[in-house]
């Protein structure tokens, strides 16, 4: 009986220790939404399409001369070898793996963006992939607790007229920056987002670091234009889709 009581007391003490850190309120909780906040410099709510203009291709290609890590070099060399042989190297998106950040941003599908006071939702017309960007002042989740994902955990804050979004917590496989350029769980993406051209162009400067894949960091800037006569639609990667798409089950695919 004494042992049982001691055990119960011990459990109570542990619960008290765990409870010292208040749980993060949901971004859409009533209390969080009701907190007073400064008016944001802009509202990016709208439907956006990447593309157009110079130096605005859909690929995120690291600069020439970047030093890949040994692990990434293996992937890069294998992709080069496959391309020379007319093969397609690990086209995971074609096998229904999520595109993930940053590639999800530049598919030829519009992205619906909805901005609230505590959170921005970016929903791609491509597989309806969702990004949640928290604006409620939270910090990144403990790396030992975060549930890793393809779009990562994105936290935004305002710096003057710029929305700065910091993303970490990525998965460590089936996630690519470009053909043969792998993203690892150490990927860190910073987006500096500006609304320009009278609110009709969204400009995002990307900074990429991933010490498990390359040395240092590199940048890429993409522009998106507002589209007023388009909505995103439901799109799913279903088993019968790939059965009927020659490109995804062709023998040219190297997996």
């Amino acid at each position, binding site marked *: 009986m004494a042992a049982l009581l001691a055990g119960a007391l011990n459990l109570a003490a542990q619960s008290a220790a765990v409870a010292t850190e208040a749980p993060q309120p949901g971004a859409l909780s009533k209390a969080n939404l009701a907190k007073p906040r400064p008016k944001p410099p802009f509202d990016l709510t709208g439907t956006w*399409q990447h593309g157009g203009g110079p130096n605005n291709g859909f690929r995120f290609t690291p600069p020439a001369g970047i030093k890949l890590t040994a692990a990434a070099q293996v992937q890069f060399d294998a992709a080069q070898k496959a391309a020379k042989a*007319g093969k397609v190297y690990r086209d995971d998106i074609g096998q229904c793996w999520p595109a993930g950040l940053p590639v999800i941003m530049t598919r030829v599908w519009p992205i619906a963006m909805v901005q609230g006071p505590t959170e921005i939702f970016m929903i791609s017309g491509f597989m309806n992939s969702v990004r949640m960007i928290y604006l409620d002042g939270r910090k990144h989740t403990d790396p030992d607790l975060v549930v890793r994902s393809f779009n990562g955990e994105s936290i935004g804050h305002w710096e003057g007229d710029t929305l700065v979004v910091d993303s970490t917590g990525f998965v460590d496989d089936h996630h690519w920056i470009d053909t043969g350029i792998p993203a690892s769980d150490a990927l860190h993406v910073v987006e500096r987002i500006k609304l320009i051209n009278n609110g009709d162009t969204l400009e995002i400067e990307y900074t990429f670091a991933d010490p498990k894949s390359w040395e240092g960091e590199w940048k890429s800037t993409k522009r998106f234009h507002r589209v007023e006569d388009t909505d995103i639609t*439901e799109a799913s990667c279903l088993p019968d889709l790939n059965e*009927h798409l*020659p*490109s995804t089950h*062709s023998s*040219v*695919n190297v997996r």
Partner: protein
Amino acid sequence: MKKILSGSLILLAVMAAAPAWAHHSMAGFDRTKTVTLVGTVKQFKWANPHSWIELDVPDGKGGSTDWNVEMTSPAVLIRAGWKSNVMKPGDKVTVMAHPQQSGEPGGIFVSVTLADGRTLTDRPAPAPTDGQPRPNP
């Protein structure tokens, strides 16, 4: 029709340099070759992110081959004048496609001539002359 087709061909040339709309690599298709498939529609799928045509193509020797022809999204097809009911199983059609590099029966869509004689591509009608930009897919 001839006028529309020539407009489409011009657009085809312009769009050849555009990024792929696909959800995957398109490197497996040989865009320097075009095959003509005369066959019977088994399935015409009107779906995101891709539509497709599954076709039964007789080989002239009493047998036939199942071909899958990959297409763009319905949103793009609508701008090119398509509806979901332009084809149904059993229709006799002629499909032009760029074949797979591997030689497997499959290709990426170029055009279809329907049972009623109409030819459809996946390219939008020629741009309006009012100078208004066209929306992207």
